[in-house]
């Protein structure tokens, strides 16, 4: 089998992520593909800490830390600043968590997407505000415990469909990706890198600390999310042309995914069954959009 993942490491050793952090691995892959002629802007999120405190940095590329809701537009500013100085080659990546993307950062993302600014926006989605101590976000799935959705009042309601929101902007490239499928992930990163305009990547990134899962299960959980159809892998060109990049041959039950995570421990069979139905329902809607 021919490997598609670049060998070169851009990220330096010494990052401060928790054991089994999906977000750290996602960044490692992203920088492998984007290379050293890239710069990052990161708002408040785990990665604001993972990169290291002043005067340390692990990223290996210039990194501008910014306020929670501003990653996309600081990216636009970086791009404009480079362009006016004659640099159109350097890749600008806005890198944020689900809170900074699904919630507080959505307005600036929508603005940059509508202007089709030439940046790559990557959300590493760990489904809650993990850096502040596991508070629910609009990316938190139904049924999950968080510190603001305690067991007696666990999250009831749907996870916001950020991909549909981005596709509605008709941006040139939108994709979901997973650290459990690195070839698929790097392929999508390459596509995004080669595309002009606003690119949006949604990377599923398990968080052992917030999900109350064993760090050794991070890849397993990321894989199960895909294999249960909870997090299908696909890409969308110009917001219209949907292509499934990883078709699951034998779909696994949602329970296999939930049982490995403490955040779902309180759920009874009825709730698990409801989650299964919701997952099947969501996938049946999405499936119709895929071209053959």
């Amino acid at each position, binding site marked *: 089998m021919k490997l598609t993942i670049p060998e070169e490491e851009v990220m330096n050793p010494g990052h401060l992520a928790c054991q089994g952090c999906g977000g750290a691995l996602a960044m490692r892959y992203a920088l492998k593909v984007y290379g*050293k*002629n*890239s*710069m990052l*802007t990161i708002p408040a999120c785990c990665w*604001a*800490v993972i*990169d*290291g*405190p*002043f*005067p*340390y*940095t692990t*990223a*290996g*590329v*210039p*990194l*501008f*830390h*910014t*306020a929670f*809701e*501003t990653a996309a*537009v*600081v*990216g*636009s*500013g*970086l*791009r*404009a*600043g*480079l*362009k*006016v*100085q004659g640099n159109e080659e*350097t890749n600008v990546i806005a890198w944020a968590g689900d809170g900074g993307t699904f919630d507080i950062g959505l*307005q*600036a993302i*929508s*603005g940059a997407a*509508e*202007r089709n*600014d030439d940046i790559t926006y990557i959300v590493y989605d760990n489904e809650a505000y993990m850096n502040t101590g596991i508070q629910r976000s609009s990316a938190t799935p139904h049924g999950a415990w968080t510190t603001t959705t305690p067991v007696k009042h666990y999250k009831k309601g749907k996870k916001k469909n950020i991909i549909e929101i981005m596709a509605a902007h008709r941006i040139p490239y939108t994709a979901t990706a997973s650290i459990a499928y690195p070839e698929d992930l790097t392929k999508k990163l390459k596509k995004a890198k080669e595309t002009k305009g606003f690119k949006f990547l949604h990377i599923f990134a398990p968080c052992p600390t917030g999900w109350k899962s064993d760090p050794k299960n991070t890849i397993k959980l990321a894989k199960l999310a895909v294999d249960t159809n909870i997090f299908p892998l696909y890409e969308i060109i110009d917001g219209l042309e949907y292509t499934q990049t990883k078709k699951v041959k034998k779909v696994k039950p949602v329970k296999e995914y939930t049982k490995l995570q403490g955040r779902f421990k309180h759920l009874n069979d009825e709730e698990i069954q409801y989650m299964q139905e919701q997952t099947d329902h969501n996938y049946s809607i999405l499936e119709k959009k895929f071209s053959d």
Partner: protein
Amino acid sequence: MKKTMMGNFAASWGAQLSRAQVIAAYPITPQTLIVEKLSEIVADGKLDAEFIKVESEHSAMSACIGASATGARAYTATSAQGLALMHEMLHWAALGRLPIVMANVNRAMAPGWSIWADQNDSLSQRDTGWMQIYASSAQDILDSTMLAYKVSEQVLLPTFISFDAFFLSHTVEVVDMPEQEEIDKFLPPFNPEYKMDVKDPRSFGALTDQQYYYEFRYKMQNAMDEAVDVIKEAGKEYEEITGRRYDLVQPYKCEDADLILVTSGTIAETTNVAVDRLREQGKKVGNLKIRVIRPYPKTDILKTVEGAEKIAVIDRNISNGYHGIFSQELKGALYNETDIPVWGLIAGLGGRDVKVEDIIEMADKTLESDSPQDIRWEGVKR
């Protein structure tokens, strides 16, 4: 070359003459003409700049921050609610030591909705680490833009130039436009020592623990202190090119004055006329216009008021629960240094007109009074 223009267009031309490279803006009355003109200037190819039409003022400032971090000269303009929305990013720009320049049209904060002159918007941003200039004429707005970049890029702190809604933003005045060549010599391209550069990868604004943060603030204070001299030097250099001198304060007939009125913005221009009329009546009144409030020109103020018997500060702003803001600041500066009594006068909030006769009346009342007042509401309907 002399031209007639509205104050807002003086801001646009100032940005053009300064060769702003990235402009990011969101519309708000009465700022809109500034960015409309700049859109035309950029579209016509008269200025080599990227114009980002953002979806909010918060994003306008954020885009300027990103652009400035790459070493580009960034510009924006706003007013009132827009400036308030930027608040978080104003801190970010200043602590990030990014020399962004902005025009702010002084407009009253809502509710009730008001689009008229009032300084509470900009003075609410007093402690963000921005240098603040209060312009009183269209010429002042134009010249202050170049001067602001000159100073900001030297001390690495951002500056905004504030000026009154409509009284200045939409009033046509004669403005002497400097030649681009002269400005290019005065204001060379921005070339920061540290910037977002793939050849020299660094992180900016990372987690800063108790070992370092305190010193960042200390260094900002040093930069503000240094800025006092840098503003003066830039003012002198600018005078050599244009014949127009700018300083942190602008005293008018203060040398022998018994009463010094302390003013800012367009009220300062009106007060000069009032001073002339009062002088005709044999009353020794002077006008001290505060042009820069951050850094605070304490030394210049003390030097100017020395010898005066009374000071009256006219504030088109109010820190509810205390006093007018220029008045508080002035009293703080005088404390321990002199015992000249100070009257704090509130006037013209929400764009109510302050006429020459009003200022003459304020001066007369102060001259007749023996007891200083923290707040005297001028022309209020009780």
